[in-house]
């Protein structure tokens, strides 16, 4: 039994591996997302040079950069399937849950990569002092997972629509408001060095949101996926 306990993950892992390989060949999403984020960061840092920004400003700016970068790149995984006409082949070869989990993991890795590149750069360029580093990292991870879980499903919804780029942002933003509010508040608290106990409700909200979105996604994705 022990050898088969992760059998459910084989399908999503295959989808993930396929996406990673396709991404590696063109590096389109990675380039778009990372370059966008770094450019935005440069603009923000340049424009805010003289301002002595405290945590109440640094926290929302960071999440704005992450949000807009996510909006520019996270829909890529589904749109590419439609553009290269491989979507129908994928519909035939894997069941919806497998595809959903695989794409979700891909987006999570993409945003994780973005976090790894942008956040240290942000700390250096904006001269950020992090009061509670462990909490900062925890909020960053929880917030990113929340972002990804909602965005992946919206990306699937938008892949079939006509005005994809703008519509993706328009649809995602209201859904992401709880994540943004909680993440910005939590990051501000982490920058100020507030202890864990006081910020744990915010972390709980982020985790709850992710769980709810992934569950909803597992049910809804099938209906959206087969609208060919």
């Amino acid at each position, binding site marked *: 039994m022990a050898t088969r306990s992760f059998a459910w993950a084989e399908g999503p892992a295959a989808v993930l591996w396929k996406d990673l390989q396709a991404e590696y060949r063109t590096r389109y999403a990675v380039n778009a997302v990372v370059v966008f984020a770094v450019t935005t960061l440069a603009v923000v840092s340049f424009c805010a040079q003289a301002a002595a920004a405290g945590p109440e400003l640094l926290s929302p700016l960071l999440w704005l950069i992450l949000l807009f970068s996510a909006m520019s790149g996270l829909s890529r995984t589904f749109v590419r399937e439609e553009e290269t006409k491989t979507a129908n082949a994928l519909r035939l070869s894997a069941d919806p849950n497998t595809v959903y989990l695989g794409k979700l993991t891909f987006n999570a890795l993409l945003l994780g990569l973005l976090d790894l590149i942008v956040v240290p750069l942000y700390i250096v360029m904006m001269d950020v002092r992090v009061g509670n580093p462990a909490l900062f990292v925890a909020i960053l991870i929880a917030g990113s997972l929340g972002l990804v879980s*909602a965005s992946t*499903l*919206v990306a699937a*919804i*938008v892949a*079939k*629509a*006509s*005005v994809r780029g703008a*519509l993706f942002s*328009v*649809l995602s*933003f*209201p*859904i992401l*408001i*709880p994540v943004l*509010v*909680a993440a910005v*508040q939590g990051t501000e608290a982490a920058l100020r060095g507030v202890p864990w106990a006081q910020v744990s*409700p*915010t972390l709980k*909200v982020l985790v*709850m*949101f992710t769980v*709810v*979105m992934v569950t*909803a996604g597992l049910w*809804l994705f099938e*209906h*959206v996926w087969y*609208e060919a």
Partner: protein
Amino acid sequence: MQQAEKEAKTAVRPWRPGWLEVGTGIWITGMVLAAFLWAPEVRNLKGTQILYFHVPCAWLASIAFLGSGVYAGLYLRRRELMLDVKSAAAAELGLLFCTLATITGAVFAKANWGMAWNWDPRQTTIAALLMLYLAYFALRSALAGTERRAAVSSAYAVMACVVMPFLVYVLPRAFETLHPTVVRRGGMDPEIIVMLAVSTVGFTGLGAWMFRLRVAVGRAVLRRMEELV
């Protein structure tokens, strides 16, 4: 036979006001008169008559939202286009009442605290609801094909419904808000509670009336489309 009976019941007929319509009309007229002539002012707050419009609008917007989400979920299960019509009709009503709730809330905020909009958690919630509704309609207009539009927008409606508890319940409780919490503390005059209940009932009647009208229009459109095909 069953189909013929169903069609006879829902055929397009000249409209005559029924109990719901007449009752709602009289009720709301009475409610408006009572709100301005009978109900007392709340201590420390100005312009409290707007409460009797703001609270029912917000309530109706939430109900419409829930209804839209439930009909959307039912559509995804059963794939009957009438359910999608009802989901869209509920969303339209929700949009209307959400806009009204936002505006009345802003007017009240301006009169009492000087600022019409300051991203207070409750204001954030109602703005987020408004954006969700607008996004839903933007999505509907960007999709082609009746079944595809119905299925994809239903998926979004369910997602929005799932996010709503976070916006309505988690956010305002997690952070400080200026929004009056009198209902929870129970420190309100009985007349005001009565007025709020009365106005909520009246607006619910109004909402039900508008919903029925809108669904009847949607049903007629659907029937026409089926005839053409």
